[in-house]
């Protein structure tokens, strides 16, 4: 009676590559997702700006080979607009999530290492920020900063750090009070040694994974706040702006104005999510051996 390992292949494509094990499949998926994102960004940077100038002779065209996503009421090519918009969103998302992660790291480390009062203060601050719905806080901050890219970046940065801070705090506390650090300290190792050899190896992947997982959220929220009208000006073709403008043309049946930009946003956010999630699976010791 033999029971053998079942082939763990997550996607039908993998049936053609049976020799890869789970870890190799993960890397392959990550690479594919990265390619998707890369292509989008490249398109956004490299495509001709002329295509988003107004061409009144090419207005309201449905999708075709010439205009992959169709054109809008001003004759602008939707594909180029979308690509450029996504690039802007990704750029803003990146800056905002980086800022968020830095704040989270500092506050998380501080609350786990600097004593009870700092810990209580940071926890209280986390509760404060988590007590208001994300979008409401974003609206408030964007309003206060007067809108624009600046407002969006600060808003997203200020609303995404709390959950990551909690995570980092929990991780650092766990490490601090684990037995091997205790033993290390008693063996006479300096604090720097412990910080570098024991704490950093745990935190570094968390940091990376934190950024990668925060990213999709940041982009989605940025698009949301821009859609509502608080973000970038209508002249900068951010995805949110594109979608909010397309709302006016819903009844006219120009479905491509909303469908493709949103779909592209979905694909990008999903790809980043895949990359982040699989990276976490690879580096997290609990799931690394599945």
């Amino acid at each position, binding site marked *: 009676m033999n029971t053998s390992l079942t082939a763990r292949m997550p996607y039908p494509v993998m049936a053609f590559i049976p020799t890869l094990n789970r870890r190799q499949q993960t890397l392959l998926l990550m690479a594919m997702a990265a390619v998707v994102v890369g292509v989008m960004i490249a398109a956004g940077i490299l495509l001709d700006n002329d295509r988003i100038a107004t061409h009144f002779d090419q207005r309201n065209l449905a999708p075709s080979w010439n205009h992959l996503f169709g054109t809008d009421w001003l004759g602008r090519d939707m594909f180029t607009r979308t690509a450029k918009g996504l690039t802007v969103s990704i750029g803003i998302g990146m800056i905002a999530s980086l800022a968020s992660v830095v704040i989270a790291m500092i506050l998380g480390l501080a609350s786990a290492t600097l004593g009870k009062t700092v810990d209580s203060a940071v926890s209280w601050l986390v509760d404060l920020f*988590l007590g208001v719905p*994300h979008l409401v806080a974003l609206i408030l901050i964007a309003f*206060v900063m*007067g809108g624009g890219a600046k407002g969006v970046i600060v808003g997203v940065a200020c609303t995404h750090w709390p959950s990551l801070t909690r995570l980092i705090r929990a991780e650092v506390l766990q490490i601090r009070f684990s037995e091997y650090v205790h033993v290390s300290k008693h063996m006479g190792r300096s604090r720097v040694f412990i910080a570098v050899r024991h704490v950093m190896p745990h935190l570094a992947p968390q940091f990376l994974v934190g950024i990668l997982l925060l990213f999709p959220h940041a982009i989605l929220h940025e698009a949301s706040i821009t859609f*509502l009208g608080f973000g970038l000006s209508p002249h900068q073709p951010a995805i949110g702006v594109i*979608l909010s403008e397309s709302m006016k043309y*819903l009844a006219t049946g120009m479905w491509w104005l*909303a*469908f493709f930009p949103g779909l592209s946003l979905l694909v990008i956010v999903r790809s980043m999510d895949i990359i982040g999630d699989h990276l976490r699976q690879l580096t997290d010791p609990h799931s690394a051996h599945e």
Partner: protein
Amino acid sequence: MVLETGQERSLMMIRLERVTWLTGKALRIMTLLFALCVISFVLLSYSPIDPVQAYVGADMMRVSSQQREQISEYWGLNKPPLERFVRWGRALIHGDLGVSMIFRSPVRDVIKDRFAASLALMAAAWFFSGIIGFVMGVTAGMNQGRWLDRILKWYCLTLASTPTFWLGLLLVMVFSVWLGWFPVGLGVPAGQLSEDVTIWNRVNHLILPALTLSIIGVANIALHTRQKLIDVLKSDYILFARAKGKHGVQLLWQHGLRNIMLPAITLQFASFSELFGGSVLAEQVFSYPGLGNATVQAGLRGDLPLLLGIVLFSALFVFSGNLMADLIYLVVDPRITEATTL
């Protein structure tokens, strides 16, 4: 927490603990709200938007500086910030949140009316996404690793990355514009007198926004429930139950469900924050006259009293959700309720 017989806590001690816990919570929300008040007020007083301009609107050109002074005086905008804060704070304690500039009526009334509409929307989405999400999560968790699980997981992860407002737009395009089954937006049919509005009218306008919110909500709940079920299935007691010959639905029913019910319900109540945020977007797409819509209006047009009021109200809303989650644990978890003698 293994209690030896003879060490049971007395009823008195339990009551004392509960009272302490409740007071702690009350204190917490008070300090939180107070801090929010201060922070929001400070932020808003530094905002670049001129409240007088926001109030007057396009007629700004025709308003003389003297009239502007009068308006400022009326709203109390020309006093120093601290005095303004104290005045506002005092009014707040008496339940007066000020008057909304956009709607020309007390903020309290605006919030009350708008929240009623939003509540219907959020409640519908909450129930549907909760039930369907739970069922999906349990199904995926029980079939972990197999095709059903993979499909459900992919579906939910994709949904979780979907912008709420884009989904709303898609639904409008398909069901309102193309198929014509549902109205395009608003809360009641346009041009209809309020006496003639029926429940069916309201429900009709509610369906698409609620559907939008539900579809997105299902994803998160299903994923979390699935993860919790997978964690439960790895436990020692499930292994022992399997050793006793239990499997499949019987295993789930006897041991699995009990242990994920509590976390699932807690999750539901903790999702009030996401729900509110989602409703802001959904209401914008469908022009649904709810609280979310009001928030956006207040933000875009600089209606400070309304914005402040909504910020505080939403914080209270989220807090009540979390409080209910904690209360449920207190009431339902036998590890807490049974800590007395039998």
